[in-house]
């Protein structure tokens, strides 16, 4: 609380990003965890909550006639444009937010103060919900070829690896330790995925410390052991996900890649996925394009191209396809990049989604993220900028994984049990720090932070609310939910993910949602099934005992049978008047039009954080998302006076 210089500012304007003339006036509150904007207009009380931990940057711009602008960009791609009447207030808010959004110590993170109304026992159970051992059991492990190794039990062999790892049965501890000494950060080859059907495996590691000529007998034995654990194949792939040039450069500093001559029967392959710095810059460029106010088609497409973002997504998916095909053909693969926690995590998890239908289920995706990202030590603290650290360590590596899954969903609409909303929600909470799952860089750190004792788990929250996250087109016995997915990676198969990157620009999204429509239909179908059964029973009963009175039950059935015959769901649950208004089509020709009537805002209250829902209004499609809605009182080059009442036709014509 000591960082809050100013807890409350009145007469703040929240500007519409796409048309600044549309704005809402209200009071801005700063709390320990959120900035809250409460609209003060009579009639409705709309609130916009922004978690400090989601704030990515706060920019104060030069003061203008109508106030001092403050621009808040969030890690979930929300952008809030405030205008604060007094410059001093703006300055105070700016400094407060800057500090609040850049915690220095783990203890300051929201997950440690987030206390929903959940009993301690229940909270502890949350953490048992996703169990990696169970996933390896599901793969059929341990078995005669693969065993659980506790060599890293105390994080002594590799401090960024989990305590429990699966390794080939024949790999004795000295081999593991020896191999680990020949790999960056001690990250020796360990199992990521095992195919029960054909015994092929995906293993992952960091780069070997081979330099120009170094060798390591144990490392060679380790790879040999991996190869031998798949008796049906006489070779294995070693996939280096980096561009060849990057790998060669690493040799100069004593690292590098495997020499095919030193390892028996390996096929070595470079993949050309760029490093974290390229990815960070690429996303930055893409976001700049998304932020453009009224871009032409060319601005948008040129910007998208020059950002290189889709090219990188394609590179990740291409590699995932390569690995999944190899495994499907019965060939084991060892994957690494430099440290083996970024690109390696991406392509191993993408390959898993392609290979195994389980990872296309809701629970399966949670398990997969837990396995290949959380337990194998993806550096969430650095990559997601949870704490003030080196800005060069920030990179949207996991965003790219989620996007690959989304691209696959677009190609295989029936293959996934979960929907786009789940991916977006997971993305949001990776960055929100509301749950403990993504805190810290590895298992060891999370243990030290006692995350499992002090915080809540996202997975059980998602599971509790799973009705929202289910894809109505998914069927367990559908052909798309069986076996290997073979996506096309032709460039035209990749789309821009509007749902994530322009998530808060409501006006850009389809106004009716097929998915929500089908969900309503399915709910109704479910009720009908129940009625059908009860009717059948009753008929049987009636036929048997004609004279028995059935009045009461029958009447009940009748009431239950009245359905809303109109299941059309307007996207995002908005009423049509609000969700569907014209945009700025005029380019400033028509000076003004009648303003859209205000939506009856949902009466969200400044409530204590007693439930998941209220504590995170960003996800509830609440009234704060009005910003994307179209513009009627469009910017007019002819009438700069924004305070003038634009409501009458007269004003429209005279201004023109």
């Amino acid at each position, binding site marked *: 609380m000591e960082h809050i210089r100013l807890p409350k500012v009145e007469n703040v304007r929240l500007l519409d990003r796409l048309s600044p003339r549309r704005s809402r006036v209200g009071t801005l509150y700063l709390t320990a965890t959120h900035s809250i904007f409460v609209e003060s207009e009579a009639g409705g009380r709309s609130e916009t909550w922004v978690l400090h931990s989601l704030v990515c940057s706060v920019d104060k711009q030069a003061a203008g006639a109508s106030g001092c602008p403050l621009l808040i960009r969030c890690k979930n791609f929300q952008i809030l444009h405030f205008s604060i009447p007094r410059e001093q207030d703006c300055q105070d808010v700016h400094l407060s937010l800057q500090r609040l959004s850049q915690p220095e110590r783990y203890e300051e993170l929201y997950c440690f103060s987030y206390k929903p109304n959940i009993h301690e026992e229940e909270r502890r159970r949350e953490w048992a919900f996703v169990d990696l051992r169970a996933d390896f059991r599901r793969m059929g492990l341990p078995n005669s070829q693969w065993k659980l190794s506790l060599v890293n039990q105390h994080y002594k062999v590799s401090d960024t690896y989990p305590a429990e790892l699966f390794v080939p049965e024949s790999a004795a501890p000295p081999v593991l330790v020896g191999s680990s000494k020949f790999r960056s950060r001690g990250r020796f080859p360990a199992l990521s995925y095992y195919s029960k059907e054909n015994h092929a495996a995906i293993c992952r590691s960091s780069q070997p410390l081979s330099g120009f000529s170094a060798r390591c007998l144990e490392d060679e034995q380790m790879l040999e052991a991996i190869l031998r654990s798949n008796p049906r194949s006489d070779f294995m792939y070693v996939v280096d996900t980096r561009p060849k040039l990057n790998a060669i450069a690493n040799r100069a500093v004593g690292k590098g890649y495997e020499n095919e001559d030193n390892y028996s029967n390996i096929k070595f392959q470079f993949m050309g996925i760029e490093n974290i710095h390229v990815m960070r810059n690429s996303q930055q460029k893409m976001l700049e394009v998304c932020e453009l106010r009224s871009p032409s*088609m060319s601005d948008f497409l040129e910007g998208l191209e020059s950002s290189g973002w889709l090219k990188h997504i394609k590179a990740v998916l291409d590699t995932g396809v390569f690995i999944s095909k190899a495994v499907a053909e019965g060939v084991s693969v060892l994957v690494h990049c430099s440290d083996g926690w970024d690109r390696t995590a991406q392509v191993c998890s993408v390959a898993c989604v392609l290979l195994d239908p389980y990872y296309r289920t809701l629970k399966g995706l949670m398990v997969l993220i837990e396995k290949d990202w959380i337990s194998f030590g993806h550096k969430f603290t650095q990559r997601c900028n949870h704490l003030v650290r080196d800005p060069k360590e920030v990179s949207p590596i996991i965003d790219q994984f989620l996007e690959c899954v989304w691209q696959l969903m677009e190609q295989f609409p029936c293959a996934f049990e979960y929907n786009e909303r789940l991916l977006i929600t997971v993305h949001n909470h990776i960055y929100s720090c509301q749950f403990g799952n993504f805190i810290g860089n590895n298992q060891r750190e999370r243990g030290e932070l006692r995350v499992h004792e002090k915080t809540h788990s996202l997975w059980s929250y998602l599971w509790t609310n799973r009705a929202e996250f289910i894809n109505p087109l998914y069927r367990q016995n559908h052909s*798309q939910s069986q076996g290997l997915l073979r996506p096309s990676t032709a460039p035209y198969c990749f789309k821009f993910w509007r749902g994530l990157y322009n998530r808060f620009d409501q006006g850009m999204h389809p106004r009716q949602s097929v998915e929500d429509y089908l969900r309503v239909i399915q709910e109704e179908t479910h009720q009908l099934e129940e009625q059908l059964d009860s009717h059948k029973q009753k008929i049987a009963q*009636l036929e048997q005992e004609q*004279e028995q009175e059935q009045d009461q039950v029958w009447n009940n059935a009748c009431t239950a049978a009245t359905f809303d015959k109109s299941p059309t769901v307007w996207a995002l649950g908005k009423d049509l008047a609000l969700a569907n208004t014209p945009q700025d089509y005029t380019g400033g020709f028509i000076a003004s039009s009648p303003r859209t009537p205000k939506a009856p805002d949902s009466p969200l209250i400044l409530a204590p954080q007693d439930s998941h829902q209220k504590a995170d209004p960003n996800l509830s499609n609440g009234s704060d998302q009005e910003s994307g809605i179209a513009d009627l009182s469009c910017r007019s080059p002819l009438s700069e006076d924004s305070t003038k009442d634009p409501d009458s036709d007269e004003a429209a014509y005279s201004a023109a």
Partner: protein
Amino acid sequence: MEFAELIKTPRVDGVVLHRPFMPTVEGTLCLTGHHLILSSRQDNTEELWLLHSNIDSIEKRFVGSVGSVIVKCKDLRVIQLDIPGMEECLNIASSIEALSTLDSVSLMYPFFYRPMFEVIEDGWNSFLPQDAFKDLESMTDEWRLSDVNKDFTVCQSYPRLVAVPKNIDDDTLKKVATFRHSGRFPVLSYYHKKNGMVMMRAGQPLTGTNGRRCKEDEKLINATLRPGKRGYIIDTRTINVAQQAKARGGGFESEGNYPQWRRIHKAIERYNVLQESLIKLVEACGDQSHSMDRWLSKLEASNWQTHIKEILTTACLAAQCIDREGASVLVHGTEGTDSTLQVTSLAQIILDPGCRTVKGFQGLVEREWLQAGHPFRQRCGQSAYSNSKPRQEAPVFLLFLDCVWQILRQFPCSFEFNESFLVLLFEHAYASQFGTFLGNCAADRARLSLPEKTVSLWSWVNRPQELERLTNPLYEANSLVIWPSVAPQSLLLWEGVFLRWNRSSKCLDEAYDEMVHIIEYNKELQNKVNSLRRQLAQLETEDPLLNTP
């Protein structure tokens, strides 16, 4: 002329057919006057039945004594025929070339086609102007149906009957026609029931460089305004293009002469630019380089999506003027037969729920495209693969369909028809067994006696078995105005047309089937529950105990 003269080799055995996403088949290739047919030898079933008029261009390749003919179709499909024997191959190729480029309309297949189905409702009579006018009469008495053009002399590209303001007589119309491009005087396009505002369309005024004016024209246009009201003239061209048109005798309405009207210029490209855009887009979709940069830069360079955005934006603007500003609108470009129709027809999709039904959309195409004189024969003569230099060809109608698809994607529950219907219209506009899209205007169709000599596409479409395939299972009548987003992020490439033959649509088709299944199953249960409920009620009334109070 006899087709037989053009068919040098009517039949070749052992021809191998390659098609996208289908196994290759070997069979016998036959050429008839209108079709290229390949039937496989085993069971004599037809594997391919292709209209010559659907062929855009062909290429020949030879490897040893086997020649290949690559057939590129107007619907953007590319197939390959491997033909044994050099001479046969050359003969087939030159025959196809000759048969697919016949110039005479009366030799087209629709004049030879006999329907194999029962015509329930003759499509030629389904959308007559006098019937459409009856609907208008029920809403307003401010308009009349004029037959000033009954012998197509006042305006060649207009139908015999047009709706005009009631107090404007035919003599005035004739004078106005001399002041508008191709005689296209302002006529009623749409009446907005909600507020009585109207949309009109016309050709450009022939003001020329010295600012000619026409009192009758001003009178006609002003006659559509309510007292004290103003209107908007939407010129689909940029101000520069419109200025340049003056030098060729065209021009635009000056504010001085039309003080009650405000002119807005938009930037929809002329048809000649559009054909090149289509060719570039199709070329980009066929690029095999697998490079993301190349794909995006080619997509951008084609400008196709830019055209989509411009057209939709202009249509939205027209709709906004009518619905939100409560003003009447006049739309024109140069001729008034291309961009003008894109705008007026799309604005109606946005404003009028009736146009979003299957029948309503057919009516819209009939009114705003066929009867309004969009020159289909000239525009759809060639598609993206043609080797000959485009003359009058342009994908004006395809762009309209693409825009409708964009709105459909944004309002997936508000249209009674589905994407397949739009694709079907695209195919038939370019090559068809039906007479609907033959000719350039109503006068052409009358001269060719199309209603007597050919079958209407609507006769075929409006039968239960076809309608079922074209109906959107998600449809729920939505009586509201629908405002689409025109942000670049919201406008997508129409995969159903442009990637149709490049990538398998199996998984997307399965998703559609799954969706239909979910809805069908729900209906089925609904019916079952209802019948059980009736059964229950019956059982209960039979029960004497329940009937006595």
